[in-house]
């Protein structure tokens, strides 16, 4: 696992450096807030209401699709890694698996999920 120690160290050091630059900026930058400046930007006019609203369901559906297909893509990774040693069985099984995936995509397509409007 020691190869992943680098990942952890990079995470800590990266976060540390970013926070350090924020701190550095905080020390040297001016700060002169006023109520108008701290208003939410909406092209120079007072905003209408809040932006925390129930948003278009389309995006949620795409997120669901992503979860389905990306998990399946991740399933394919170990398979691809040992593809050569598995022989013909691997190829046939992949054809079946991908056919199922394509059917899934086609189903979603026909359901109108891929339509934006």
């Amino acid at each position, binding site marked *: 696992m020691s190869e992943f120690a*680098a990942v952890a160290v990079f995470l800590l050091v990266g976060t540390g450096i970013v926070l350090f630059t924020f701190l550095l900026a905080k020390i040297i930058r001016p700060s*002169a807030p006023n109520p108008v400046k701290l208003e939410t930007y909406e092209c120079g006019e007072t905003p209408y209401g809040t932006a925390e609203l129930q948003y278009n369901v389309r995006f949620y559906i*795409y997120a669901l699709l992503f979860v389905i297909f990306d998990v399946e893509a991740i399933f394919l990774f170990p398979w691809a*890694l040992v*593809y050569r040693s598995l022989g013909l069985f691997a190829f046939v099984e992949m054809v079946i698996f991908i056919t199922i995936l394509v059917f899934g995509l086609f189903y979603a*397509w026909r359901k109108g999920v891929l339509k*934006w409007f």
Partner: protein
Amino acid sequence: MLELRGIIDAIWSFIVGLLAGLGIPQWAIELVGYALIAVVMFGVVAVIVLFLVWWERKVSAKMQDRLGPMRVGWHGIIQTIADAIKLLQKEDITPKAIDFPIHFWAPVVTFVAAFMVYVTVPFGKGLIVSDLSVGVLYIIAITTFTVIGLLMAGWGSNNKYSLLGGFRSAAQVVSYEVPLSLALLGVIMISQTLSLGTIVTQQDNLLKWYVWRQPLGFLIFWIAATAECNRTPFDLPEADSELVAGFVTEYSGMKFAMFFLAEFVNMFTASVVAVTLFFGGWMSPFGPDFGPSWMWFLGKTMFFVFVLMWFRWTYPRLRVDQLMGFAWKVLLPLAFLNILLTGLGIYLFDGLK
């Protein structure tokens, strides 16, 4: 001769000697080593980004019949440093309506996710921080973290333009993630490894580049990677003529700089992955040990960064429904087809073990 590994090893053994003399245990020395490397890597990435920003301005200037930055340094080469210093001094305007923790951590997440990719990027012969056994998967996983940062920025800003931008980027990045990972599968089926270091050493001359065996896979990857970087023609999340500045609308000063930095780091990452998986990475095209490896790596990567810039300054932007339709209706079926073809190709021409 010009390989950097030797120099780094020399410095490292000096530091190890020093620390071991102080009686520090081996595992701590290793951690200190990684920390030092991380700081150096941050410097390398920062220098690369500073160069890329300047270069992008010069490339765009050339394409648009202008000069670009000319005043600060030779042909404005240190203009970006001046800009960075300016951004450091800028007032940080955080509107009242924001959700502070989300708003604050968004740039951190975005940048750190972009930076962490460099754990396993082979810059040259022996120049890899940690050749992870799951390198390709790691890169795919980590680059996707960027979208969490962008979504946080969009939601935390409590601004409708930011919200639109954040949602757009989330939908876009997750949609293109699927064809991207499927396109890389082809290379993995051929190489039978996820380690980037090994994939590079397998392509030790021009003819062994995987792009020749994966042309479709490369095309799908490259289009999807452009979309992952949020670059024109896929720059919808920050489409300035529609959403003012998208998810960065409410950011200023150093926080804005972090998003900006992350964008360029991602651009470089996309080129790095393209070069490493499809164009032989740091291997010279004329067989091993022909010229310094890190120069081959940088040269190839810069070419692909240039292609990204070329896209940006030539194409108009897609619309959001066209963008999604293209990912799901064109790229995804093509990516499936690519896997089938690759499997068939390996079976027919290479034989299976």
